[in-house]
């Protein structure tokens, strides 16, 4: 059975149809890149997956169960802007992810637990290359560093699905390339399923194992809002990467651990 399944999903606001009749099955571990013109429902699709909105018709299943209608820890997210907490330092921004998940009353740790969380967060931040900026506030970071922080923050919560809403849209090309490498290597290490909205076709082809193109099939010039977008192309890409990951995932855990130490 597929991991995420869209069954005849429609989304309309009033009489403005944004998405119509989406049927889609996504296997676990896929890296889906979503492309299409502006206003073609890519972000709506992502909001549906996030649980920020619920579909006006049809349903979305996660592991065979209907998706909960509000954001929860099974789905992590990185937005283009405002993804991190401005009032916390880089380190605290990642520590809070561990704290919020485990402490429902105070939302924070003390003593030994705090130290352990800080160590774990520092390790994650080192992985994304922010170890030199642990005590800075997000406002003093560059755009690329803020997105690295947002990714670290989302990944430390160990979501099963990661949603990226044009995460690198505001970065310059050099930094964007670094971020691509970082994202691919992070995905390689886990069984994360990723959905990424992008305006950059090259980015979509380079990163995805599956490229979904959103487009309007029917257009009525007298009522431009009457028909919504569908997924017009569903292209399998970089399959070697996905099969490689699938094979790695079948290795017993003690073997995985030893290879991690070597690398």
């Amino acid at each position, binding site marked *: 059975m597929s991991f995420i399944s869209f069954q005849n999903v429609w989304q309309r606001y009033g009489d403005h149809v944004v998405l119509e009749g989406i049927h889609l099955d996504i296997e676990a571990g896929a890296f889906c890149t979503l492309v299409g013109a502006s206003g073609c429902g890519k972000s709506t699709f992502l909001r549906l997956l*996030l649980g*920020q909105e619920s579909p006006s018709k049809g349903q979305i299943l996660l592991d065979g169960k209907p998706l909960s209608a*509000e*954001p*929860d*820890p099974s*789905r*992590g*997210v990185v*937005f283009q*802007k*405002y*993804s*991190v*907490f*401005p*009032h*916390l*330092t880089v380190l605290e921004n990642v520590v*809070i*992810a561990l*704290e*919020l*998940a*485990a*402490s*429902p*009353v*105070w*939302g*924070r740790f003390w003593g030994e637990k705090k130290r352990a969380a800080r160590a774990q967060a520092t390790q994650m931040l080192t992985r994304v290359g922010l170890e030199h900026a642990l*005590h*800075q*506030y*997000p*406002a*003093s970071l560059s755009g690329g560093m803020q997105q690295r922080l947002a990714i670290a*923050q*989302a990944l430390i*919560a160990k*979501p099963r699905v990661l949603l990226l809403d044009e995460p690198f849209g505001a970065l310059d090309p050099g930094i964007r390339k670094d971020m691509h490498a970082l994202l691919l290597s992070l995905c390689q290490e886990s069984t994360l399923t990723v959905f990424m909205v992008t305006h950059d076709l090259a980015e979509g082809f380079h990163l995805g194992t599956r490229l979904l193109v959103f487009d309007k099939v029917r257009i009525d010039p007298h009522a431009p809002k009457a028909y919504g977008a569908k997924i017009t192309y569903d292209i399998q890409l970089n399959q070697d990467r996905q099969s490689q990951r699938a094979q790695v995932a079948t290795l017993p855990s003690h073997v995985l651990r030893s290879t991690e130490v070597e690398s």
Partner: protein
Amino acid sequence: MRLLNHQPQRSTSLLLAMIPFVLLAAIYLLNSSLRLADNPEDKLLPSVAQMVEATKQMAWVEDPATGSYLMLEDTLASLKRLGMSLAVVSILGLVLGLVLGTIPLASATISPLVAVFSMIPPLAILPILFIVFGLDELSKVMLIVIGITPMLARDLEQRARELPKEVLIKAQTLGANTWTVMIRVILPQLVSRLITSLRLLMGSAWLFLISAEAISATEGLGYRIFLVRRYLSMDVILPYVLWITLLAWLTDYALKKLHQCWFPWAEGAGR
């Protein structure tokens, strides 16, 4: 160069800022000396020497009736009332703003009430406060609390709503519940706004304080000003007004420094 592109340098702007003050002082001193030359008994525009003498009398000479230093006593009484009220206002405003700004159901229930309350002119209900809370400290504190809390609560509610929704969604994807979103994500950011809002509301706070003291008190800066008004003692009133202005400016400066110190992230700078 066009006028709107002309930026004064630091030293120039300091100098420019001085000009109105110096002019104002000069006009006062000139008119004061003219009137005093005409009639040495004139009380309307006292000379600097007269004001210094009167201030000395208020500040450093024990009052024969009560055995206390009046200006010190007045200042402490007023600051105590102001401090107590602002503490209550801050807590009430913060709690209301946080709850109303975060929980749509609470906002739908209570926000209209707060909006109506904030329209009531506080001075109009001062008599009611005196009747209900007596003529003591409580009614003066209540006037400031009732006058400022609705404004502060509405401001903070608005600020809480203006937080990007991405941040709230992000917190939820990290496993936060409503309560932990409130205390870990929204509250810290609201406290920063609270300091900024308080700076703006200090003017109203002083207004309500002086009004309440003018009407019913036995000490306090407002009480003193309205007491000596009966004797046309401009030589006491003017230094008191200057003193109140200085206190207000110092509080504003202290709040500003506090904000910079506690909330470096809101100032857009790293630690």
